[in-house]
């Protein structure tokens, strides 16, 4: 947890204090952490295990949750809790027995108000997490468009 992407660059003492704000939750295989459209009040750090992030897709007329990405130990899920309008845009389930640390938005805001330097560092880390996802999906999207263009021109 001390190597969590969200906490990079914080001093060890600060990491301990931020982690102390959280609540550990154990998920059994297949258990849902949050659901698409839910109000997002907590951001989660994956302590161990793996979280599947899915979106619904129509497959042969039936709605199926299709994998969008996976997050594992040290990675962050549920950043919608820190970004308005605070609603989850994916569904998260445990791919196997998984432990996460739930960090409540209000508790984080209060801590960062008192420790702005930590708040800045974590905000920059959060921007990296979001930015990386944006870049990955941008590239994935362009690859799909390229295939569509090739199909059309074939």
């Amino acid at each position: 947890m001390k190597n969590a992407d969200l906490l990079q660059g914080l001093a060890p003492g600060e990491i301990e204090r931020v982690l102390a704000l959280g609540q550990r939750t154990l998920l059994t295989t297949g258990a849902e952490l949050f659901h698409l459209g839910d109000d997002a009040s907590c951001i989660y750090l994956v302590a161990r295990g793996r979280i599947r992030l899915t979106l619904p897709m129509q497959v042969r007329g039936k709605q199926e949750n299709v994998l969008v990405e996976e997050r594992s130990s040290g990675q962050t899920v549920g950043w919608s809790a820190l970004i308005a309008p605070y609603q989850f845009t994916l569904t998260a389930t445990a791919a196997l027995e998984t432990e996460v640390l739930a960090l409540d938005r209000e508790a984080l805001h209060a801590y960062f108000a008192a420790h702005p330097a930590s708040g800045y560092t974590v905000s920059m880390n959060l921007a990296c997490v979001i930015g990386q996802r944006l870049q990955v999906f941008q590239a994935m999207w362009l690859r799909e468009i390229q295939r569509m263009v090739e199909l059309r021109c074939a």
Partner: protein
Amino acid sequence: MEMLLMGAVLSIFGLAVTCLAFGAATRQEPSEEKEALRVAASNAHFFSDAPAARILPLAARPRVPIEALLLQIENHVRLEQAAAECFMESPNPALLHSRTISTLVN
């Protein structure tokens, strides 16, 4: 004589079951699925609001079990994500448009 007749009846019954199984295995696709395949093959529009079958012909293939199809989709997503991450490590057009081995699109 009775044994012979019994044998003959059982043989005919076995033949009938075999014919039914063969017929089921080689039955033509339902017309709806054929139509989806035809449309997918002939009429894929860029940015169209057409049904997903037009851009995902595999989804319209009638004999791929849905569990296998979902696994193919999942595998495709993982491969695409890995390709995108490779591109991010060293951004260039060749890596962006590297070929995939995904069975969903090949």
